[in-house]
Every structure is written in C-alpha cells, then in structure tokens.
C-alpha cells in the first residue's frame, strides 16, 4: 500500500491543483478566468514532472505552456472581445455524451486502480526512475539513432507544413496584388 511520505503529500497537493484547475476551466463562463485556471492546472503538471525526476521537462512546461501558450490564449481572448462571456451552448445530445464520458471515466478508473491495488498487485513498490532526466538525456533521446530520431524528423516536417498552411489560410487576398 501507499506510504505516507513527502512525495505522496506533494502528489496529493499537485493533484488538487491539476484537477481543480481543470474543473475551473470547464465551469467558468469567463474566458479570461478560464485561461487563469488553465495556468494553475498546467503548473500542477509541471510539479508532476519534478516528482518524476524530470526537472528539465518541468522547466519547459512552465516556459512553454504557462509562459507562452497561456499568454497567447489571454491575448486571443482580449482581441476577440465578444467572446469574453459566453452563454450556455448545449445541444440535445448532451445527456448521451454525459453517459459516455462517465462510463469511460469509470472504465479508466477501474483499469488504473486494479493493477495497483487489486488482487495480484505487485507487492513491492518499484521506484519510477533512478536517473534524473535532464536536458542532455532528452537531447540524446531525440537525436540518437535508437531513440526518437524518426518522430523528431517527422515532427519537423509537420511543423513546416503547419506553418506554411497557417500563412496560406491567414494571408490577406489584397496583399497579393502588390
């Protein structure tokens, strides 16, 4: 069973942050508040990375998600003022999706809890990772031949295509004549 130590307590606090933040995002009507709740939730995820001995990923999480993406969302909300307080939008099938989501949640909860606490659960607790994953390890994993070099390269092509596409879609027709 679970020992009560500093890590477990930290995990519990972070979980409250992540889940509470997520709940805030979906319940608030104000998009700016929603963005702030999202920051809270993402901060909790950064904490998870620290617990998983991946401080570099935690820093990236803070820099990219909180520093860049959340700010971008706030800017987008500011620039589209009419969206700051939305009315309720529901279609007739909301109960169907509610049932599906609850069933999926229960299935996942059981699926995750069973191997940990159910019968035949491993008696000893295996530690997650002995090595601290820093920038060097991450960099090697991305470019080493037996690491993730192929997904890395495909992702770079993908980003090129996405960037070209964003320009194509956003370009103003009038500029073309110039």
């Amino acid at each position, binding site marked *: 069973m679970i020992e009560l130590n500093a890590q477990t307590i930290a995990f519990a606090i972070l979980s409250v942050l992540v889940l509470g933040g997520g709940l805030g995002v979906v319940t608030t009507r104000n998009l700016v508040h929603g963005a702030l709740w999202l920051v809270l939730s993402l901060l909790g995820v950064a904490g998870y990375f620290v617990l998983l001995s991946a401080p570099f990923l935690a820093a990236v999480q803070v820099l990219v998600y909180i520093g860049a993406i959340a700010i971008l969302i706030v800017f987008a909300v500011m620039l589209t003022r009419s969206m700051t307080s939305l009315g309720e939008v529901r279609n007739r099938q909301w109960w169907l999706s509610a049932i599906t989501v609850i069933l999926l949640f229960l*299935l*996942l909860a*059981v*699926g*995750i809890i*069973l*191997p940990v606490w159910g019968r035949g659960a491993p008696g000893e607790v295996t530690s997650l990772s002995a090595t601290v994953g820093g920038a060097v*390890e991450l960099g*090697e994993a991305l470019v*080493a*031949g*037996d690491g*993730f*070099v*192929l*997904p890395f390269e*495909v*992702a770079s*092509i*993908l980003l*090129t*295509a*996405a960037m*070209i*596409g*964003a*320009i*194509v*879609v956003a370009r103003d*027709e009038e500029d073309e004549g110039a």
Partner: protein
Amino acid sequence: MTDIPVLADLNLAWTWPVVGLGLGATLLLVADLFIPRDRKQQTAWLALAILLVSFLLNLAAFPVVDSAFFGMFVVDPFSAFLNLIALTTAFISILLSVDYLQRSGMQRGEFYALILFTTAGVMLMGHANDLVVVFVSLELLSIPLYILAAFRYPDVKSSESGMKYLVLGAFASAFFVFGAALIYGATGSTSLPHIFEVVARGFAAGGAPELLLLVGTGLVLVGLGFKVAVVPFHMWTPDVYEGAPTPVTAFMSVGAKVGGFAALLRILVFALPVLSTGAVEASAWQQVVSLIAAATLILGNVVAIAQQNVKRLLAYSSIAHAGYIMMALAAAGHAGFGEQATRAALVYMLAYMFTNLGAFAVAIAIEKGDGSGSDLEQFVGLGRSRPLLAGIMAFFMLSLTGIPLTAGFIGKWLIFQVTIEAGLVPLAILGVLTSVVSAYYYIGIIVRMFLREGEGDPAAGGTGLVNGAVYLTFAGTLLPGIFPYLMTDLTRVVSTTPVGG
C-alpha cells in the same frame, strides 16, 4: 547512449520513397518562390515529377522486408503496396487540381507542396512500427488536409469545411494519443513488435488481458475510426467533403482512408492479433469491429439514397466503402485469417482508389468555376452532350456497386469470401444486401445521365488533364476487372508477421 550512431546504422536505403517525398516537398516550396505567379502550373509539373520518382523508388523496394531507424520504420510489401495507392492518389489528385485551381482563382504553389506533405504522412502511416511514429504521421497526414479543405479561402462553406475537419480531427488525435498512452502503460513499450511479444506472452500464460490494454485499444480504434469515417464517427464527412475544393475531397476520400486503415491494420492485425479475452479464436476487438462495420454499411448506404449533391452522395458512399474494409478487418480478427483478410483489404482499397477518383474526376468536369454545379440534376442529359464521359461515369458507378468485370467486384468478392470463411456469415450477408441498396443510388446517376431528357451539361471543366485522369482511372478500374491477377498478384507477398524489433 553517448555513442554517436553513424548514418549507416539507420539503414536508410529503403526509406527513400518517403524521405525523398518529404525532401521533394520541402524543395518544392523553395522552387515555387522562383516561379512567376501566372505560371504556377510549373509547380504542379515539378510535384508530379517528385511523385513519379518516389513511385519508381517504391517499386524497386516492393518485395523488400527490412526495418530502418532501429525498428521504428518498417519496409515490407504491405507498406509498399499502400505507398503505390497513396502515390497514385496524389498523382491523380494533382492532375485534377491544376485546371480546377486555375479557373476558380486558387492557383497557388503551396497547394502542391501541401499535397506532397500529406501524401508523405499517408505513406508513413503504413511504414510506422511504433505508436509514436503512427501519431506524428497521423498529424502529418491531417494538418495539411485541414488547410487544403479551407483552401477556397473567403468561401464560407470551404472555411466551415476546414474548421470542422480541424476541430474533429484534433479531437480524434486526442483519442488516439490517450489510447496509445494506455497501451504503453499496459505493455511498457510503444514499439509494435514489442507490444506483440508482451501480449502474446500474456496470452500464452492464459491470463485475461489487462483492462488498460483493452481500453487503450478501444480509444485507438476511436481515433483512427474518425480518420477513416466509420459510424458512429462519420458525422463530419458530408459537410467536409461538400465544402472542400473537389480535388481535395477526391484526395481526402482515398488518402485519409488509406492512411487510417494502414495504421488500423498495422496495430490491430500485426501487433494485437492475439489480444483475446479467453480461449476463443477471435481477437477481443473482433466483435466491436464487426458492429462498427455493420452500422457503417447500413447508415452509409441508406443515407446516401436521400442525397441530392454528388459530393455529399460520394461522401456517404465513401462511408459505406469504409464499412466494407472494416468487414475485412473484422475477418482479420479471427485466428489464422489475418493474412488473407489483409490482402483482401489491400485489393479493395486499390480498386476503390481508382473508381472513386474517377467518379470525382467526372464530378470536377461538370462543376462550375465558382464551386457550384455539383447537384445530381447536373448529370441529367450528360449522356447526350458528353457520351464518352457519361459512359465512363456509368462504369465507375457499376464498379462502386460491385458489378462483375469491374475492379470493385474483385475487391468485394475477396472481402465477402474472407468474411464467410472466417465465420462471420451474418456480416457477409449484410454486406451483400447493402450492396444491393447501394445499386439504387449509383444506378440513379446512370438513369439521370442516359434516360432522362434534358439539355445536358457541356462539362466545361473537362479539360485535357481532367480527361487524362478520367481515362487513367478508367483503365485502372477496367483492366483489373478483366484480369484480376493484376491486383491480387501484387498482394501475394504481403505477410502479417511483425518485422524487426
């Protein structure tokens, strides 16, 4: 870890069809800068040349079984066959696009580069031997398609099409990633051969598979189900197909499906064939896939009857055809039938590719420059004004129905055969019955073209290139219909043994 691997270790030799295509697409973007605005057709010729080179490289690699990038990338006849389909689809789509873009004022060089990028994504889906690679290739396949769907930019319908595809596509990707994460959690690996080993070991030990693995497989099925548009994940299809520029719809209806089915077959048949809930011979996913196939066949074929727009009709028809390929997948879930069913699915996709692209080519020929004119009424009298075009369209419709002497018949025959042999007789009967239903709306088009009086559309869009595409797809539909071994022999070397590790 710190040893720097030399390039030779990556075993790049057989990856050139895909790597070359990605490289070509990137170079095409640069070359396009130097091509003047009024001569953008030259970009299209370059794109066609790149596709041709990739096609020839792929033919050279056809019977090779090997793996590259330390097992992440697999080269085998299965992926080579899918590459042939993907490259031909892109080739014909570009033939259809050149004049279409010109007359609707959308002639931009980026279009062709984006088609090449998404084709590279489709090909990578077939080569992927690792869930991470499947995911990035799925995105490489999808993101250019979102943009292409919205390419007729200020047009509201086209923007709606791109937006819907983007939102639902992102949703589907999220399902896929979640599923892949759960499979990783249950097996400790994202590599497909390794997953196969872990699941097979668990099966041999007699234990029931972990719930997480089952849920993960289910979520992966949902994510890819969106891509190939099977019921109940098909809702976006008619709107997206209708709003997108027609050559893009033509590409989407084949390319995105081929990519999705490549990954489905690779994951379910190659990696998880022994995922079983007990001593039964069928995989745990067989029942779900059968149900999806049945629902897709019924809904796709029945709703297609009510359609008044040829693009919407072909959208529902493409949903129905995804249902037939799902039938093959269901049959593959029966122990010992994986190989035969995979071959049937491959032949079906090849036949569907030629026939469906041909039908879209004819639809482009009669479409107006402003994107209107795709109502079914537009076909009235075409048999009088353009008899050859109408005759070929009639042949495509018969092939989609599955009448003998067409490629569509061979595909359906192989799929029904393997479904019956795998013991899924009710599903096979449903397949035959829905084919009969589909005859109603396919033959409805033939009736409009030949039997109803009308002025007849001049088919102004039927330029030399479009006609070329029509004849090419006609040959691709007719010849295998008469000589089936042209298609079936190619699949003879396909095996479903997991490669590398």
